[in-house]
């Protein structure tokens, strides 16, 4: 299952974070420092290196879009390429909704961004990858 999904920019600021496994042991500070740690590891890697890492027992799959890193941490079972493409599907869905999405959009309309994520991942499992269906409830919300 997917353990977490975070969007962090190059300065280490988290723009969106969703955790799908119990994280009672992490305080807010530890959480942010862990997120920054992961981002630093991703930043250290070059363009030519692969998008997969290992961090504290989970697989990390990341993809960079302009200034934002989309990072997903998953357990050993998950298929890395599937997750990589899921990130892209998520970005395309956001793209369609926000009309050419950028970091600022996500920051200023955090509620919509969360909503989209919640339509596509539930309880750590990939649920809906059809862009129309994922965006449908959002249209209801906007009315």
């Amino acid at each position, binding site marked *: *299952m997917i353990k977490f999904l975070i969007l962090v920019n190059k300065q280490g*600021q*988290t*723009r*969106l974070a*969703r955790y799908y*496994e*119990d*994280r*009672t042991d992490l*305080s*807010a*500070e530890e*959480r*942010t420092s862990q997120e920054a740690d992961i981002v630093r590891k991703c930043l250290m*890697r070059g363009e*030519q*290196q*692969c*998008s*997969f*890492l*290992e961090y504290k*027992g*989970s697989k990390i799959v990341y993809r960079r879009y302009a200034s934002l890193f989309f990072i997903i941490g998953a*357990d*050993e*079972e998950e*298929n*890395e*390429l*599937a997750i*990589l*493409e899921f990130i*892209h*599907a998520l970005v395309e869905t956001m793209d369609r909704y926000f009309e050419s999405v950028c970091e600022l959009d996500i*920051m*200023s*309309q*955090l*509620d919509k961004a*969360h*909503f989209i994520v*919640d339509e596509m991942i*539930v*309880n750590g*499992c*990939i*649920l*809906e*990858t*059809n*862009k*129309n*269906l994922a965006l*449908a*409830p959002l249209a*209801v*919300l*906007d009315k």
Partner: protein
Amino acid sequence: MAMRGLTQFIGDIRNCANKEDERKRVDKEMANIRKHFKEATKLTPYQKKKYVWKMLYIYVLGYEVDFGHMEALNLITAPGYSEKTVGYLACVLLLSETNEFLRLIINSTKNDLMSANEEIQGLSLACVANVGGREFAETLTVDVQKLLFNPQARPQVKKKAALCMLRLLRKYPDNFAEDGIGGNQEQKDKLLDLLDDSSLGVITATMSLLLGLVSHNPELWPDSVNKCCKLLAKLNHPNASKEYGPEYVYYKTINPWLQVKVLRLLQYYPPPEREEVNKRLCEVLQRIISETSMGKNVNTNNSAHAVVFEAVNYVIHMETNQQLIHAAVNMLGQRITSGNQPNYRYLALDAMQRMSHIPEAAQQFKRHQETIIRSLKDNDVSLRRRSLDVLYSMCDSNNSEQVVGELLDYLAGSDFSIREELVLRVAILAERFSPNLQWYVDTILKLMSLAGDYVSDQVWMRVVQIVTNHEDLQLYAAETCFKALKNEAVHESMVKCGGYILGEFGHHIASKRETSAEEQFALLKDKFDSCDQNETKQLLLTAFIKLVNVHPDKVKERVVALLNHHTHTIDAELQQRAIEYLVLSRPDKESMLETVLDVMPNFPERENILTKKIKERERASTTDRTANQIKAGKGGEDDDEDAPTVDLSAGAAGSQTRPKGAGGGGAAPSSGGGGGGGGGGV
């Protein structure tokens, strides 16, 4: 629905010049919110929403938010849809499963589940699916199940209900088993029928649910195999996109995520028994593996290959289909040499490592040995790790010298995080595939000189076990250790290892002048003075007294002087040994000395401590058991990795004797137990 207050706040935060300012602004806002929440009843829903959103934003930024949970919960009970969204989201983000607040919303979620409005149902289902705990499971399972199996429910609701079920079942595992859904045939059939639903969203969600169920009790769901094969064939059929809708076609592959899940479920079961199902499955797999090529578009490639690699996993699981194995090996061979595609190289290396236990595949992978060795030196740490794994699996008696040589070179320049594991693996490989035992001793000694810090005690103790049990190796071991210890800067593990070996087997080389007893004593005394750890000193004391036993006239005075020196030392163990050995060295105790320090008996055959250590390090952190874990649980007895590879009993031809004194093997040594996992009597 843009909340101006929120946008303003976000803008302010962005304009903050540094962390200090940001913190001040956040604190100010928190005080503001706290003030407003105190008069909670006077807030309009819009305002409540706004403040809760600000709170959430602060939380995502990384500050602790320890108030306002009640207001968030209250929003859930509000009638408006937008308020409910915020309320549920706040609960999911801020509260974790064990938080008591969560109990308060069980009732409101239950009401929302029954609501006529599907969006609201969806909201509450998602919330329970993401944070539901055991109490949720107890109260809500029946309701969720009703929603799932209701034929009139919209797909939107059904798919979330399926994932919600998964969470509830995980929290309350009894529901998985015979007395829950597992035993109820009617419910099982209904669940499997959901796989024929027209909406791929529902099918995807059901697959996830099914995967969870199967991983807990594979024996309860044998019918799922046929259904899955049918589904896979349907998805790969050229008409698939027309049937399920073009939206699901993601860069020319139809819903790769669903296909991956189906393939994963199939790995929990042996290949289908029915002939035609099996045949169709193999055809589909063959097409997937052989006909997917690398095109120009990254995303197309990725989505197609996601399915390919999962298919390869299934082929590895099946193990018997030669044609498929051949196809998979070809494909992997191509991917591993794809120069500028590091992702594929990574995955190909990973798949190769898992495939190398299949003999036909392993043979063909040898062709790529050079490429793998080159990847070992790649500047991408992930690739280096994978190639290390592959080399370890690929090593056999033919290429062991080369592989171990490469690994030792790599060790010299590797980063510290993997050194310990690397050392363990080299030690195991050296033992398992050594062309001769001398090479084994050399390799371990080289290992110690290269990465002494990471050589745990078990590694050199293993060397001792092997040397003890092979009489013909003892001379060589003593000579090599002596030479190695002559170096100035020697690592402490080397001192321990060499000290023990010289003590026990030094008599083999004592006849030569350069390595006489006096020389051995001088050498060890030198190290004794310069070593740090007390354990080393203790070990060396035992070695000294063994020297006295063998060559009483030559070294006794000096050893006694040394022992006298340490009778008042601070370390208790050292002191005890010094005093005891002093007593033993007295002339009237000569026979006792001989008995006590008689030749060590051979070590019995037991599980190699090193392989045990490697297994301990492989942690499982998944919530469901993987297919491999289930297999490992069943087939544990067949696993022959445990069999000690160097036959410990091979060298035990009769009793070994020391030159002086008639030793009959098997007298108990002085301190420490005999034989076994740790080195005895050091």
